[in-house]
């Protein structure tokens, strides 16, 4: 059973790390700010979500697991807001000029 949980952790965390890598490459390579934001939010939301999901079986207690989920939800909220703010600023700058 622990073997299964460990295997799940390894797979999910690796997938999350891969998404972060892909997101970083996108951040570095994509041509404009909006598509860079798009790459970043994939890493932030799905990547972090997968890592948290993978770590859940390793959490020692229920409250530990809940804290992990809270970290993901709070990161989601702040990342979504920050992306919206940056995108809105670009939008206004474009329509303003």
């Amino acid at each position: 059973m622990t073997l299964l949980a460990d295997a799940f952790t390894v797979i999910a965390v690796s997938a999350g790390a891969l998404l972060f890598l892909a997101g970083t490459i996108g951040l570095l390579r994509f041509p404009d700010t909006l598509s860079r934001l798009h790459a970043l939010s994939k890493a932030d939301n799905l990547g972090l979500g997968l890592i948290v999901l993978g770590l859940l079986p390793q959490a020692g207690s229920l409250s530990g697991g809940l804290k992990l989920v809270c970290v993901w939800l709070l990161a989601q909220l702040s990342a979504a807001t920050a992306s919206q703010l940056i995108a809105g600023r670009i939008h206004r700058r474009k329509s303003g000029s």
Partner: protein
Amino acid sequence: MAQLFDLALVIWLIALAVHITMARTDQNAIIAFIAFGLLLGLGWVQLSAFDVALTEIAIGAGVTGILLLSAEAHMRKARTSTKATGTKIAKAEASTTGTVSKATTIDEGRRIGAVGVITTAIACAAVTVGLGFAVLLLPNPAPTLAPAAAAALDATGLGNPVTAVLLAYRALDTLLEKVVLLLALVGVWSLAPDRLWDGAPALRPAEVPEPLAYLARVLPPFGVLIAVYMFWVGADAPGGTFQAGTVLAAMWLIVMIAGLRQPPDTALKTLRLLLVGGPALFLAVGLIGFIIADGFLAYPEAIAKPLILVIEAALTLSIGVTLAMLVAGPAQKAREP
């Protein structure tokens, strides 16, 4: 494997530090500095110094970052306005006398020049070499007070040796630290013009984006809960007044920036009581120590933990308000009668 990670972290930190010094604009340098603080926090985690890691991320990256960013914004505004007037004067001069004015030199005053750069580089290198020597020359095992700190932990009733050091063994340092914060705030407030002295700082941008207003409504309840948790858990686990106070400050700031609540007048009695409350209570308990315990800042063993918790609660509030007001800056609006 862990060593590989440490090595990568060290290389990353050094590369980022070099990047900060080489960054073309101040804004880029500050943003890199914030990232540096986060990475440095990771480094402290690797050293198992979780309290330091939390403080580094909260104060070193968070509060210092936003203070630097707002200072940079102010400087840029001031510079562009002097530049604008400078070119205006230059044009006027050129039209009247037909000569080219030296308006372009205005901007150069802020650069430190080649001599300054070399001096700074030498000073930085000297500090680095000195630190390297200090670390290499440490006796093995390095001198440590950790066993003594752990042995006396029972007398304080606390479970976190870091909190014991901060609030019991070296309480004087902590008290002075809080007073320094207040002095910094007095310094910031003093930048307000005389007629605005007791007025309120202005934080709200001309137009608040909808997502920011949403975040300012949703986040603060969680943030306050997290701050209370960090303060409460600080007695027995990593956490404490500074980290909790920073989170409180951040929550208040986001509410003020989104315009949901106005920044208070700096003359407001409640505000000033909150600011002074923590250090004042700390000082009062310290003085009572002469009567009920062995001396200044000593606690009677039986009620050491509750006393420390009460002081920490008041300090958390004071730090939160102080940091928020530091970021809010000097008064910009006259007091409403």
